[in-house]
Every structure is written in C-alpha cells, then in structure tokens.
C-alpha cells in the first residue's frame, strides 16, 4: 500500500523516482540528425515552423550520436548503410530509443529487392514504427507521443 494510494496523488510530494526520471527523459529527448531519404524531408517539415517538434522538447536535432537519446531512422536503409546505422546506434549513450519512420524503414516498403534492408529491426531494436510513405508530420508526432507513453511506463528494474 504505497503512500500514494493512501494520501491520494499529492503531486510532487508523492512522486516516485521512476516518474521523476521518466518525466525528465520524455520532456527533453533529443533526436539524432539522421535523415536518409524522403522521410527526412517530412521530418524536416515536422521540425520546421508549421508542425514544430520543439513543442515536445525536441528543439535540437543533435548531429552527433554522443549527445542524442533518440534515433529516428527516417528513410530507406540500403545494404551499404546498414553497418553504419548499427555503428551509430552503438555509439549512442545508454538510455536510447529508436523510431523507425516510414514504410521503408519499418518493412522495406515498396522496395522489396536486393538493395534495401527489409525492415530496420534486422539492424537495430526498434521501439516505435511509424507507418506512411512518407508519414505526415502529424503521424511522426503521434509516433513520438506513443514513444513517450512507453518511456513513462518504464520501471527501475528495467534499468538494472
């Protein structure tokens, strides 16, 4: 019987450490500047003035993986790009998440041939798949909202 059940939700007083850490992580999740193909243009539209990703704490698209928490794979991943993608994912500091934006990243999309990795989940573990070719900026923001819900649900035992 946590204190929260007894005393009811008293905001900051009954705040669990998990909630505090997850709140900090979701409200300042910096994506890595990693545009591959057409979805990158829609990601830029999402970042620009009309759809404005900065409202969700994603003001900066960090260029280097060392300073980013979220990797948005925006575009089709070719066989030549797969090892580079894996290396970039490994070089990201630890609480990291992956959004596979667009059909080509999620399942190869319209390109079912020798050159494209059929789904980025063969290269990196993916948290959220965003459908669309290219997905509208609102669809990408919806994907980010879904990821935030997922991160808010994480517990301390996941981080052990």
């Amino acid at each position, binding site marked *: 019987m946590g204190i929260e059940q007894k005393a009811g939700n008293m905001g900051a007083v009954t705040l669990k450490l998990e909630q505090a850490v997850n709140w900090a992580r979701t409200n300042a999740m910096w994506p890595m500047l990693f545009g591959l193909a057409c979805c990158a243009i829609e990601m830029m539209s999402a970042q620009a003035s009309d759809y404005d990703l900065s409202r969700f704490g994603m003001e900066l698209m960090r260029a280097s993986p060392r300073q980013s928490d979220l990797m948005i794979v925006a575009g089709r991943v070719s*066989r*030549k790009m797969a090892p580079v993608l*894996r290396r970039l994912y490994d070089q990201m500091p630890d609480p990291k998440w992956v959004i596979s934006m667009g059909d080509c990243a999620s399942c*190869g999309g319209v390109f*079912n*041939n*020798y*050159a494209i990795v*059929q*789904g980025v*989940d*063969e*290269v*990196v*573990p993916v948290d959220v798949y965003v459908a669309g070719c290219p997905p509208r900026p609102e669809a990408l923001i919806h994907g980010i909202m879904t990821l935030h819900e997922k991160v808010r649900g994480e517990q301390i035992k996941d981080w052990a």
Partner: protein
Amino acid sequence: MDAHLQAATQAIQERFAGQVSEFRDQISLIVAPQQIVEVCRALKDDFGFDMLSGETAVDYWPAQEPRFHLVYLLYSLQHNLRLTVRVPLNGNSPSLPTLESVYPSANWHEREIWDMFGVRFEGHSDLRRILMPADWEGHPLRKDYPLGYEEVQFSFNYDEIDARKPYAKE
C-alpha cells in the same frame, strides 16, 4: 532528320562502318566496340557533340551473341541535337576502352556500369564499385541476377517467416 545530324551520321558511317537506325525521330548509331573512342572523339571535335548526357548498358540475357548493348547518349549544345551511339558486346564479362579521355563525366557512368553490369573498362582511372558495398558479389542489374525478393509476411505464413527473420538483439 536534321541536316547537321545527317552529315555527322554520314561521316561516321563511312569512316567507321557504323549502321544508322531511327525510331520516333531519334537517331542511333551502332558502332564496333574497339572504335568507340575514335567515334566519340570525331563526333565531339568535328560535329560539336560536346556533352555526354548519359551512358548505360542494356542486358539481353538469354541472347549470348550481343549480350550487352552499351548506350552512349550524346548531346550537342550549339546545334541542340541528340544522338545515341550503341555498342554491342558479346560474352558474360566483356570489356572495352574507357571514354574518360574524351568526356571526363564518363568516369562515374563507367564505374556504375562496372558495378551494375560487370562490363570492364580498360584504361579507367579508378574502376571501383560505386553504388554497391565494396565486398558485394555479383552485378545486380544483370538479367540473370535475382531481384532479391523477400517473401511478404501475411497472417497465414507469419510465424515461419518470423522465425527465419534475423531480428537485431540489443
């Protein structure tokens, strides 16, 4: 057919015994592989075809006789004329002299044709793969190269494909 183009094709026919064919008012010259550098140099210097728009190959796979056709798309800026020069090549790994000395932009075109079709270019300054990874086997755009089609996961065959799919561990 434009007068200037008429003169150009006439001259090439006499000097290099090429044939001329026309389809929908587009002229194409068929020339032997070893003469391609002289033909293009003549076309460039004497007849003003100073721009190599593009260069590609076509694979007629079951037919071995001319298995490949090298297609050079020439364009003349002053006369605003287009001319296609085709070169038939036999066998599975043909080779012909490079065109880099005449048109420098042929460098990457030829690297791409080597990468995609396996047509070797003698005298090319830097014949490496340009589009595929460096250690890739096979030449993808050949007709006998499989498309690399992966079976699509529907509900009925989801499980056995899912077992085979190489998911990335953490």
